[in-house]
């Protein structure tokens, strides 16, 4: 069984559209994350979330919003997509805030 799974694997869409990426973990972890990896491979944390607290990287535009229906899921919703949003988005989870993270396979988002 895949520990951290995210869908879709690829997402190609037009500028201005709204899209969501789903993430689920079956590890029983209580903290989940979203990262953006750009073409230069820089990994930037966007959000971290546990059942008590959402921590937002202040540099992330408010067009991006995490939604967590339960402890095992943290979805990423993006409004009004822009060209600069093209990147690979990784979901990850860990037992607690500073524990080792398990990553999903990534979602490659391409904006036309």
């Amino acid at each position, binding site marked *: 069984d895949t520990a951290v799974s995210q869908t879709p694997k690829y997402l190609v869409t037009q500028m201005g559209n709204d899209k969501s990426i789903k993430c689920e973990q079956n590890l029983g972890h209580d903290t989940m994350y979203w990262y953006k990896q750009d073409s230069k*491979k820089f990994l930037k*944390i966007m959000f971290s979330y546990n059942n008590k607290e959402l921590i937002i990287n202040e540099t992330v535009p408010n067009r991006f919003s995490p939604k967590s229906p339960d402890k095992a899921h943290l979805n990423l919703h993006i409004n009004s997509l822009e060209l600069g949003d093209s990147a690979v988005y*990784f979901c990850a989870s860990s037992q607690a*805030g500073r524990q*080792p*993270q398990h*990553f999903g396979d990534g979602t490659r988002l391409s904006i036309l």
Partner: protein
Amino acid sequence: GQQVMQIPQYQHVQEGEDFTTYCNSSTTLSNIQWYKQRPGGHPVFLIQLVKSGEVKKQKRLTFQFGEAKKNSSLHITATQTTDVGTYFCLISSGSARQLTFGSGTQLTVLP
């Protein structure tokens, strides 16, 4: 906010040569983690260092945490083509709120 510098950005080595990547922080760290990302893959956890001066080994990989807990290194002895990928450090300081990945070192191993 906390900053981390990882060097070098790129490293090309001949198979069998050694390789080292370094992470340097401007602040004292709570811990440091190392990850490896194969081309087209996702980051995979390698090790976590917590104690000042800590040294851990995994086969040909040696990880060190500086005495002042501001820097760390990953050393690979006798590289193999399977070592190809990007190696990242992940630092945290203070509360778990502060998590920052280094910029990564892309390792190419020439056969």
